């Protein structure tokens, strides 16, 4: 991994005791709310209303998870979110790679202008399109259906820009020319040259997109109002609205909604950290 190798070029001072102490404190601060979610989810409502608050696990975890799974609709929500975030990730990565490659390496009319359009809208907040999107969804009869949250986020301007920046350097123009000389069509070029070269950046973009899609909140709670087909965040918003008064069940819901990403972080933490840091240098 480039970021690890590069570390040698930076400072090599060893961290002192103070550095460790501060970092450990900060790590505890980062992890504590998550651990406490699990502790609260393993207790019951009465215990959570007592002083001092619980600091160790109780015996109600599975009971609460079960109630959250069925009564708070977290089971359906998890499956829905997997479908939504999965589709968005595949769409974003695929379409961003194709367009990013075109912007990085091919010549065509209006290339500069179109790229400017992509970059110009990259930072535009979702609030600015939510009213017309809502009208469109109502018009198409998509209210409370998953396509209403998939289609509007299926592509991302950031993704195109990110892939373009990566491919400009990662894919030498000579390689493309050589493939052309060998008579490769654009389709074969993309399959045999572009995708292999873009794979590391595709993985990074995929991870970032999946986390973002999993946690997306603003548009889903507008599009999926009736709650028939909730995503995890919509179901959690229902819990926040007081749908179930039991605090320990609410925490169980929060835990269920966070657990898949936490597991992914335990498994791929190193890659995700590397991806974010590479993205930072590129961006």
């Amino acid at each position, binding site marked *: 991994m480039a970021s690890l190798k590069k570390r040698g070029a930076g*400072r090599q001072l060893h961290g002192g005791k103070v550095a460790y102490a501060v970092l450990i404190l900060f*790590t505890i601060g980062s992890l504590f709310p998550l651990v406490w979610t699990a502790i609260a989810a393993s207790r019951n409502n009465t215990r959570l*209303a007592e002083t001092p608050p619980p600091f160790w696990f109780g015996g109600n975890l599975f009971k609460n998870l079960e109630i959250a799974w069925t009564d708070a609709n977290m089971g359906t929500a998890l499956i829905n979110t997997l479908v939504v975030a999965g589709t968005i990730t595949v769409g974003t990565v695929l379409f961003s790679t194709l367009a990013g490659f075109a912007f990085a390496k091919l010549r065509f009319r209006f290339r500069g202008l179109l790229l400017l359009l992509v970059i110009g809208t990259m930072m535009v907040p979702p609030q600015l399109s939510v009213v017309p999107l809502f009208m469109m969804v109502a018009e198409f009869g998509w209210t409370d259906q998953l396509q209403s949250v998939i289609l509007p986020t299926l592509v991302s301007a950031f993704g195109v820009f990110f892939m373009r920046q990566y491919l400009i350097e990662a894919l030498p123009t000579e390689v493309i020319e050589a493939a052309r000389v060998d008579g490769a069509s654009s389709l074969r070029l993309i399959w045999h040259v572009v995708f292999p070269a873009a794979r590391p950046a595709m993985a990074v973009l995929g991870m970032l997109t999946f986390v973002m899609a999993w946690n997306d909140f603003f548009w889903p709670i507008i599009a999926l109002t009736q709650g028939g087909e909730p995503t995890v965040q919509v179901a959690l918003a229902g819990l926040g609205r007081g749908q179930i008064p039991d605090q320990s069940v609410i925490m169980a819901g*929060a835990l269920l909604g966070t657990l898949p990403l936490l597991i992914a972080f335990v498994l791929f933490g190193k890659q995700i*950290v590397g991806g974010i840091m590479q993205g930072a240098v590129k961006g």
Partner: protein
Amino acid sequence: MTDIPSDTRTAAPSTGEEGAAPRARAVAALDPAAERRRARRSRRYRWDMKWSPYALIAPFFLFFIAFGLFPLLYTGWASLHRVELGTPTDMEWVGLRNFSRLLEDDFFWNALRNTFTIGIISTVPQLVMALGIAHLLHYRLRGSMFFRVAILTPYATSVAAATLVFVLMFSRTDHGMINWALGLIGVDAVDWQNGDWTAQFAVSSIVIWRWTGYNALIYLAAMQAIPNDLYESAALDGASRWQQFRHVTIPSLRPTILFTCVVSTIGATQLFGEPLLFSQGASPTGGSDHQFQTLGLYLYEQGWFNQHLGRSSAIAWTMFLILVLIGLVNWAISRWIRRSA
């Protein structure tokens, strides 16, 4: 590979083949079928070269125009109309009335003020802390990857999950985690939700918790790109660690700091989920007294509770104008930095 393109493939003849054209033509003259094949192939090649770029960007632009660009512009159009939530297709032209109403609306100014103050309380400590943590992570450490992954876990936690947990921790009575801890050092229980500043502080703390680690990693990446000899020559000049941090690290990080400032500012302008779920019963008013209602929440309340989509659009465009303003300030600052550097 000159023999690769067959009729069934879309593969184009290579330029290498064109180099061997005279011989090929001689052969082709004997075989009209081969001649036609060759012509078709080269036509296909030219067609491929000309149109494939458009085919590659087409899927992106199709979705981008339908669900990105069109809604963006249509919000502007909708903001000039009276549009009700129940009958969004009945639009009545009202000109700039949605905007002029906004300027006379106390709740709008309240939301603007809250967005600004929450933005400051959440962004400034977040970035300062991130800078410090990144500095520590830049040392040679045991378990440095563990620290990096651990401080990034809040980023994996959704706004909704995080806010539900923080609501419980900021619970008003002394059984709430925070009030209990304050009680240990002799501070009376605070009614976090109903206080003015306390609620804004609590909402900001959720933002700070979720994003500090992420920003620390961004800074760390930029620190690793600083050439070592800058530090060496600073050390030769007798600079202490703190002086090195101030006079080498910070100046080198200026573009990154500016970048994170912009991104955090944009995030702060849109703040929505945290204040929504922090409010009792997830009400869009942002507290009993609108004390932490942000612009994002006010837009939602106007559109989906008061059913005025037109006014909601006007708020969206106002937010956009504010962002453009911030962008211009940022551009001016970065130009000033480049000139002074």
